[in-house]
C-alpha cells in the first residue's frame, strides 16, 4: 500500500539529504519520498549554505522545481525511468544548460549562455534527474594556470570539513556541494586531477571515467585529448549508477568511443577476488597520516581476499608530456581569449599571463609529447596486465589552506595523475580516513582503459567494509 500524500510531502531532514543516490532512488520509486519535497529541501539547504562555501555559480530553482514536479507526476503515474529519476544534482559550470549562464568560472564569460544542452545534461534530463544548480569552478578549469584558490568568478570554494581549507580544483564547487549535502551528486570534469583531488580533499567518492566514454559535447574544452566528465557522489556505487547514465557514444564528440565500447552497464557489485598493484612510487613524500590510512584501507581489502603486490609506475617524463599537451591544447582552445587580451580579465595573476608563454611551445615538442604518450600507453597496459587495479593514496597531502600559494604549497610531481590522464584510464578516489587535523584522506583505484567496472568494484568492495564515506562534515 502506498504511503499517504502528507507523508510523501514531508520535508526531508539532513539525514535524508545525506543518503546515497541508490537509497534516495529506492525511496522515490516506492513513493516514500517526494522528488518535489527532496528538491525543495536541497534548494533550501543550498541557498542557506552557498554563501558559506562558494559552492554554486547559479541555482536553477525554476528549472529544478519544474523537473521535480514532472518527475513526481510521472512516477505517480507509474512511469519510473530508473535510479536517477527525481534525484537532484549539480553540474559544473562548464556544461551548457539551455537558457542559463555558463560562465566557465571566468569573468570574460560571465554573461555567456548557450541555446542547447550539453550531451550529459540531455542524458540526465532523459534519466529524470533534477538540475538544481551550476557548480562553481576554477576559472577555465585551470586552463590558463592558477596560483590561488580564489581563481574563480565566485571566489574560493571552501571545504565543508574546514572552512579555512580549499576544496581543490577545478571541480571545486562540485566537491563542496556533495560533501555538504547541497545535492545528491554532482558532475565534475578532469583534465588532470580535477575530479580526483576535490573528491579526496572533500571526503567524497569521485570517478574519472575512461577517456571517450562520456561525451564532452557542450562542455568547455581545455585540452581536447585529455578532458573527461565524471560523477562525484557519496559512494562508488552511486558513481556506477550515474556513469551508466552518462556513458555512451556521441557522434558530436570526435573522441567518443564507439557504441559498444562507450556504453557502460552497471549493476550492484558482486563480491570478487581482486588482484591489486600497490604503487610504491606514486608519490615521493607522503603525509604520515595519509600513509597510515591508505595502508589501513589496503589491509581491509586484503582481509576480504584481495591479493596485494607492490607495483611501480614506469619511469619516463610522462607527467612532463601531459603538461606540454595540456599547455598547447589549452593555448589553442583559448587562443581568442589570449590574443584579444581578454585573458587579463581573469582573476588569478598566473592565469593572466600563462597563455602567452604556453603559445611558445613548438610543434616538435608537442609531437614529442604525443610520442611519449604512445610509449606510456604501452607501458601502462603492460603493467595493468598483471593487476585488476592499481592503488595509491589519491594525494600525498590533505586539503591545503584557503590562502595557500598553490605553486609552492601544492606543487609536487604527480606521475600517477600525469600518466592516468595521459593514457585516459579510469580512476576513483574514495574516502579512507582523516588526518590528525580532521581532514579527509582519499585512496585511489585505477584500472585499464575501458575497465571502469574494475576500478568501481575495488572501491565498492572497500566501501562495503568501511564507513568513511558515510561521515559528515561539521557544518553549523
Amino acid at each position, binding site marked *: 500500500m502506498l504511503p499517504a500524500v502528507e507523508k510523501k510531502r514531508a520535508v526531508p531532514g539532513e539525514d535524508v539529504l545525506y543518503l546515497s543516490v541508490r537509497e534516495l532512488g529506492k525511496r522515490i520509486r516506492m513513493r516514500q519520498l517526494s522528488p518535489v519535497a527532496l528538491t525543495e529541501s536541497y534548494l533550501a539547504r543550498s541557498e542557506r549554505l552557498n554563501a558559506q562555501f562558494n559552492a554554486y555559480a547559479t541555482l536553477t530553482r525554476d528549472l529544478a522545481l519544474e523537473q521535480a514536479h514532472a518527475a513526481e507526476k510521472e512516477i505517480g503515474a507509474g512511469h519510473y525511468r530508473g535510479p536517477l529519476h527525481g534525484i537532484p544534482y549539480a553540474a559544473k559550470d562548464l556544461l*551548457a544548460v539551455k537558457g542559463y549562464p555558463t560562465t566557465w568560472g571566468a569573468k570574460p564569460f560571465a554573461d555567456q549562455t*548557450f*541555446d*542547447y544542452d550539453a550531451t550529459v545534461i540531455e542524458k540526465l534530463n532523459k534519466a529524470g534527474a533534477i538540475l538544481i544548480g551550476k557548480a562553481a569552478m576554477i576559472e577555465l578549469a585551470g586552463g590558463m594556470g592558477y596560483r590561488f584558490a580564489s581563481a574563480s568568478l565566485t571566489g574560493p570554494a571552501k571545504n565543508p570539513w574546514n572552512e579555512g581549507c580549499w576544496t581543490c580544483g577545478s571541480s571545486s564547487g562540485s566537491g563542496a556541494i556533495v560533501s555538504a549535502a547541497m545535492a545528491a551528486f554532482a558532475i565534475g570534469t578532469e583534465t588532470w586531477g580535477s575530479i580526483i583531488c576535490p573528491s579526496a580533499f572533500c571526503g567524497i567518492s569521485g570517478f574519472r571515467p575512461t577517456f571517450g566514454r562520456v561525451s564532452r*559535447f*557542450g562542455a568547455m*574544452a581545455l585540452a581536447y*585529448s585529455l578532458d573527461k566528465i565524471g560523477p562525484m557522489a557519496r559512494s562508488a556505487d552511486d558513481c556506477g549508477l550515474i556513469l551508466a547514465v552518462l556513458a555512451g557514444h556521441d*557522434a*558530436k564528440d*570526435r573522441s567518443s568511443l564507439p557504441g559498444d565500447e562507450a556504453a557502460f552497464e552497471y549493476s550492484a557489485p558482486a563480491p570478487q577476488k581482486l588482484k591489486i598493484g600497490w604503487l610504491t612510487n606514486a608519490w615521493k613524500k607522503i603525509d604520515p597520516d595519509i600513509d597510515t590510512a591508505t595502508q589501513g584501507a589496503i589491509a581491509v581489502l586484503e582481509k576480504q581476499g584481495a591479493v596485494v603486490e607492490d607495483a611501480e609506475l614506469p*619511469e*619516463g*617524463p610522462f607527467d*612532463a*608530456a601531459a*603538461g*606540454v599537451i595540456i*599547455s598547447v591544447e589549452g593555448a589553442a582552445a583559448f587562443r581568442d581569449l589570449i590574443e584579444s*587580451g581578454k585573458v*587579463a580579465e581573469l582573476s588569478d*595573476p*598566473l592565469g*593572466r*599571463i*600563462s597563455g*602567452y*608563454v*604556453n*603559445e*611558445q*611551445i*613548438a610543434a*616538435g*615538442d608537442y*609531437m*614529442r*609529447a*604525443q*610520442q*611519449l*604518450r*604512445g*610509449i606510456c*600507453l*604501452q*607501458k601502462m597496459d*603492460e603493467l595493468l596486465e598483471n593487476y585488476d587495479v592499481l592503488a595509491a593514496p589519491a594525494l600525498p597531502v590533505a586539503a591545503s589552506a584557503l590562502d595557500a600559494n598553490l605553486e609552492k604549497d601544492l606543487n609536487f610531481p604527480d606521475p600517477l595523475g600525469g600518466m592516468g590522464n595521459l593514457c585516459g584510464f579510469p580512476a576513483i578516489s574514495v574516502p579512507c580516513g582523516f588526518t590528525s587535523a580532521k581532514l579527509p584522506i582519499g585512496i585511489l583505484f585505477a584500472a585499464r582503459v575501458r575497465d571502469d567496472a574494475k576500478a568501481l568494484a575495488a572501491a565498492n568492495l572497500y566501501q562495503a567494509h568501511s564507513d568513511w564515506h558515510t561521515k559528515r562534515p561539521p557544518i553549523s
Partner: protein
Amino acid sequence: MREESVKDAKKLTRRDFARAAAAAAATATAALAPGAEALTRKVAGANSTRVVNPPGPDDAASARQAEIDARAADVLRRYGDRLSAEEKTEVRRLVGELQKTLDKLRSYPLGNGDQPATVLRVVPDLTEVLRAPRR
C-alpha cells in the same frame, strides 16, 4: 618497426635513461634554439677550416639559455605592451620553468617508429557532427 622501437625504449634502465637524457638534451636544445643556430654559423664563418669540437656541456647550457631568451623575447614582442613590469619578470620566470619541462621531455630517447598517440578517426556519422551547433 614501431614495436621494435617501443621494445628498445622499454629495455632502458634508469641509468641508460639518465645518460641518454643528458645527450638528448644537449642535441635537442642545440637543434631547436634559434640563438644556437646563429652562434654556430658565426663560429663557422670566422674560421671555416677550424675543427669544431662536438657540443659540450657549456654549448648545451648556452643553447638552452638562448632558447629561453628567444621565447621570452617573442612573448614580450607580441604582448609586451599589455604587461606590467612585474608581469614581464614573471613571463621570464615562467619561460624558464617551461624550459625545465621541455628538457625532461627531450631527454627521453625516441625513434622514428615511435608513433605519436594522435589518431585520425574517421567519424562515420560525420553529417551529425557537422550539424551540431558550434561551440
